[in-house]
């Protein structure tokens, strides 16, 4: 244990906080690289077809222009050998290798110039001519062509079933059947995706805003066909990722390519408008739900069938139905995923892929069924808890869903506030509603490496922990420092954490809610290895401090490596975090505007390493869920296939006034099966089911069941009150 109150579990301030509040934290384009020039990407203005001509004459005349790169003159890169590859975080990222256009806004070139202003303007002057094909842009029109993909994201199964859903539905006293839609949504981290690329002979350094350093190295090495050792990726501070920075995307390739072709370091920043087409998004999910229960509220059947869209060149489907396989224990279950191809950019991972849209459908449908049963929705969920993962037949390593539900309901005052009948509470012009939803997110864990270096100066130890993991705002610097402080028993001030550089040991990076578990367990492993080395052949007792051990051995410096990886016990269990959400919303029925007033979240997410940063992760997730519920949607222009919502003035991410008081209650949980420190991710649990909790509260307020997110004034104006 740490005797300085800065170890695991303490709510210390972020160790990188001082740099962030003074503007001194360096994000990727803020490094000074001598002789640097600027590249501006060029994007297609049709959605399907091919480039038939490029006119660079006007652009070339502009002062400062160094190079104009298109498929006609781009260096050759490795391209995909198979049709419709499944995207992976270390997959190839070729660009400008073909005249073919797959979607509106695809990279088709770059202009490199001495200054940013020159590059930006010259980019406007490059003219492309096209031969257009008839694009497929409309979801409704192509749904009939949806097929069964072999693979869906995260290794989830495309289809599963047990029991007999049709019979379960037939046997049910009460059933509901409904279609839910979550629209295309975009990540929009505040920091634009960007790179500074710099070649020296056949070696490249990439200052790249990326969540996964080692995967970026692989992608760059493979795409440019150079050894991994010739690639260095540097990413110490990342201005948000949310999944969009899991992979070194085409802009990274374009920046590196441009640097290679002009022989100078190049900065390339994706424009905010470009963030709609270049870095992925959450796909449109249409989810057909059929649920049935006996008259006492026991679920007899749960069918969750989703259809989504991918691009015409990559196959990506998020596992939206997977939450219906594990959150409850229906005896009859059917979950399927279907996919259609459209001339849109490829969708990608976005905060809680699968769970975020899937939980909206499942937890809305559960609310609808509870309403039809005239049951309290909290009790209905408790009644249908399961202690076994029916989809894998494995036990849960730990499952505290009932605790989350009951404690959350108690803190919220659910029993006093909530009334079954909608429109029961009014305050002036506002209809007041209460809604809830249960949540759950898988807690992955995988092989991670780190190194700890101990330096002694008299009786003082300084530890440096090195790993190529990243801090995307999640607090990695802080929790790694706390873990080292804990297990070396030194104050956190004496710990240096170095992240985000491919010269450090390999980790899986930040994503999928595994960052915290992987980074801290490997730090624990490295610190333990260091202490073990020091304890070899020592006469000192168990309680000897690190400094005493080093002194006794007369060493001033010591390096130890750590490896963390899942145990066989982990493989034999289903490892998940759980939560419950309770929302109070006020709806102005005349204006259709919805305001969140109060939110309570309970979370059982293993060991809470730092409640301050964990709370931030949860409220961040809830803010995302609120955006999903009320404001965010990217609209595809039906005639041209572009996103007509193309700026942050059209695509509304929540602002400060959209938020309200949020209380988070951590449910103490010890889960050593998950990993030695019992750490589970919490950032994606935070977003899961928030959309449903808010939509359920809007129904409770208004009697209007909005099944297509977001819940806009337009939809509430058009919709009729649903009567029981």
């Amino acid at each position, binding site marked *: 244990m740490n005797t300085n109150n800065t170890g695991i579990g303490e709510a210390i301030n972020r160790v990188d906080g001082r740099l962030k509040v003074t503007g001194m934290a360096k994000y990727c384009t803020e490094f000074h690289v001598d002789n640097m020039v600027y590249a501006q990407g060029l994007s297609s203005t049709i959605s399907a077809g091919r480039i038939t001509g490029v006119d660079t004459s006007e652009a070339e005349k502009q002062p400062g222009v160094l190079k104009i790169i298109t498929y006609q003159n781009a260096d050759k890169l490795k391209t995909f050998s198979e049709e419709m590859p499944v995207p992976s975080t270390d997959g190839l990222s070729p660009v400008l290798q073909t005249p073919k256009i797959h979607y509106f806004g695809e990279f088709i070139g770059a202009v490199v110039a001495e200054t940013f202003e020159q590059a930006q303007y010259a980019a406007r002057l490059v003219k492309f001519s096209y031969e257009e094909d008839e694009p497929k842009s409309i979801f409704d029109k192509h749904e009939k062509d949806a097929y069964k993909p072999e693979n869906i994201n995260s290794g989830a199964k495309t289809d599963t079933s047990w029991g007999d859903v049709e019979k379960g539905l037939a046997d049910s006293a009460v059933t509901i059947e409904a279609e839910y839609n979550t629209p295309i949504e975009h990540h929009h981290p505040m920091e634009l995706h960007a790179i500074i690329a710099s070649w020296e002979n056949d070696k490249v350094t990439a200052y790249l805003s990326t969540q996964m350093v080692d995967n970026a190295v692989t992608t760059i090495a493979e795409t440019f066909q150079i050894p991994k050792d010739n690639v260095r990726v540097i990413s110490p501070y990342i201005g948000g990722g949310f999944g969009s920075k899991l992979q070194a995307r085409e802009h990274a390739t374009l920046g590196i390519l441009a640097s290679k072709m002009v022989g100078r370091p190049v900065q390339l920043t994706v424009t905010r408008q470009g963030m709609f087409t270049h870095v992925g998004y959450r796909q449109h999910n249409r989810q057909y739900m059929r649920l049935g229960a006996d008259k006492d509220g026991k679920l007899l059947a749960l069918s969750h069938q989703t259809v989504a869209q991918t691009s015409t060149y990559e196959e990506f489907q998020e596992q939206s139905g997977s939450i219906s396989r594990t959150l409850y224990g229906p005896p009859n279950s059917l979950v399927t995923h279907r996919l259609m191809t459209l001339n849109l950019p490829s969708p990608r991972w976005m905060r809680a892929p699968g769970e975020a849209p899937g939980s909206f459908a499942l937890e809305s449908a559960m609310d609808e069924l509870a309403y039809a049963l005239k049951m309290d929705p909290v009790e209905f969920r408790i009644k249908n808890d399961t202690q076994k993962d029916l989809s894998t037949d494995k036990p849960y390593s730990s499952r505290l869903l009932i605790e989350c539900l009951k404690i959350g309901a108690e803190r919220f005052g659910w029993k006093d506030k909530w009334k079954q009948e909608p429109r029961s509470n009014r305050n002036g012009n506002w209809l007041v509603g209460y809604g809830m939803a249960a949540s759950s997110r898988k807690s992955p864990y995988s092989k991670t490496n780190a190194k700890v270096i101990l330096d002694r100066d008299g009786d003082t130890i300084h530890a440096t922990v090195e790993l190529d993991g990243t801090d995307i705002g999640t607090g990695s610097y802080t929790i790694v420092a706390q873990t080292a402080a804990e297990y070396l028993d030194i104050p956190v001030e004496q710990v240096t954490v170095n992240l985000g550089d491919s010269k450090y040991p390999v980790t899986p990076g930040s994503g999928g809610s595994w960052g915290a578990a992987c980074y801290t367990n490997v730090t624990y492993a490295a610190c333990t290895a260091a202490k073990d080395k020091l304890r070899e052949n020592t006469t000192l007792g168990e309680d000897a401090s690190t400094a005493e051990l080093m002194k006794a051995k007369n060493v001033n410096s010591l390096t130890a490596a750590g490896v963390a990886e899942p145990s066989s016990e982990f493989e034999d269990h289903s490892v998940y975090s759980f939560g419950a959400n309770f929302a109070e919303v006020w709806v102005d029925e*005349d*204006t259709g505007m919805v305001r969140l007033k109060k939110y309570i979240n309970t979370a059982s997410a293993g060991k809470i390493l730092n409640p301050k940063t964990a709370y931030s992760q949860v409220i961040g997730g809830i803010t995302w869920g609120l955006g999903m519920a009320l404001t965010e949607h990217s609209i595809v*222009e039906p005639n*041209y296939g572009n996103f007509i919502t193309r700026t942050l003035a059209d695509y509304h991410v929540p*602002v400060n006034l959209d938020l309200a008081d949020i209380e988070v209650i951590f449910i103490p949980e010890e889960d050593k099966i998950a990993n030695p420190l019992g750490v589970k991710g919490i950032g994606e649990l935070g977003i899961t089911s928030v959309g449903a909790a808010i939509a359920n509260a809007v129904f409770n307020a208004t009697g209007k069941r909005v099944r297509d997110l977001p819940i806009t004034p*337009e939809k509430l*104006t058009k919709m009729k009150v649903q009567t029981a």
Partner: protein
Amino acid sequence: MRPFKYTNAASETEALKSYSGTPNTKYLGGGTNLIDLMKEDVERPDALVYVADLPNNKIEPTASGGLSLGAAVSNTDTANHATVRKNYPLLSMAMLSAATEQIRNMATNGGNLLQRTRCSYFYDTAMPCNKRDPGSGCGALKGVNRLHAIFGWSESCVATHPSDMCVALTALEATVNVQKPDGSSRKIPFVDFHRLPGDQPEKDTNLEPGELITSIDLPEPYFSDKYYYLKIRERSSYAFAIVSVAAGLQVEGNTISRAALAMGRVAHKPWKLANVEKFLQGKPATTETFEQAAELAFEDAKPLDQNEYKIPLGKRAIVRALEQANARA
């Protein structure tokens, strides 16, 4: 952004002179819209004359008992000016509903009147737009038009005017003072300042080339007690309206003696409801009256295929705004 010559004008005369020097010159105020559009390559001036620091930066009483708002005064300073708050709170509230503190600190009163539409087709040079490129067609007419006009649109343009300030100025019947390059000046009644698209949607206003807005005059205050600016939007702040209503009432006993009413984001210009104002005059200040007013306001509404909801929403907005105004002491 296209290269341009930059001049910082020290006086109005100098600004007007600079304008005449280069064709295709634009006056630059706070830049909150013009610079944005230049970055988008929608606005392509050859020269900019900076006018935000001109001396027409005062708010002063007019001889006729009104108030004159200098064109270079920022939106923040106008909305927070003691006399504006006291006598023209409707204007203050409308201005404060717009954008953010940072943008209001930059935006000038003159510039606010010249804001261009937020139509996505206008903003994206890859899309057709008659307002941006006359003759290229209107993408929104048969495209995504859920946020577009329901009054006064034409086959060539269905865009809406985005300003909040202008909705209040329309309701309050302000006058715009402009100076011409030849040194002469003229006054434009606010309802005539902006125009409907017709077959020339590239023209947002009735300003002549080179004319510089110098100030905006407000008439004597009639609506300093009962006022409300209601802004319905898809995010609680930092968003343009879907529909907005500026409402001012003068009520004696329970009878409306004078009304000011205009809507925003429903037409190519701020939408003055003069006939509804007339209807309200002499009527009791009741919800029933307000509901009748709302019906009257939408008699001529002509929705596009995606924005019919603006009619019921707008009607409720009018009732609500009038109720809120009337509820004030």
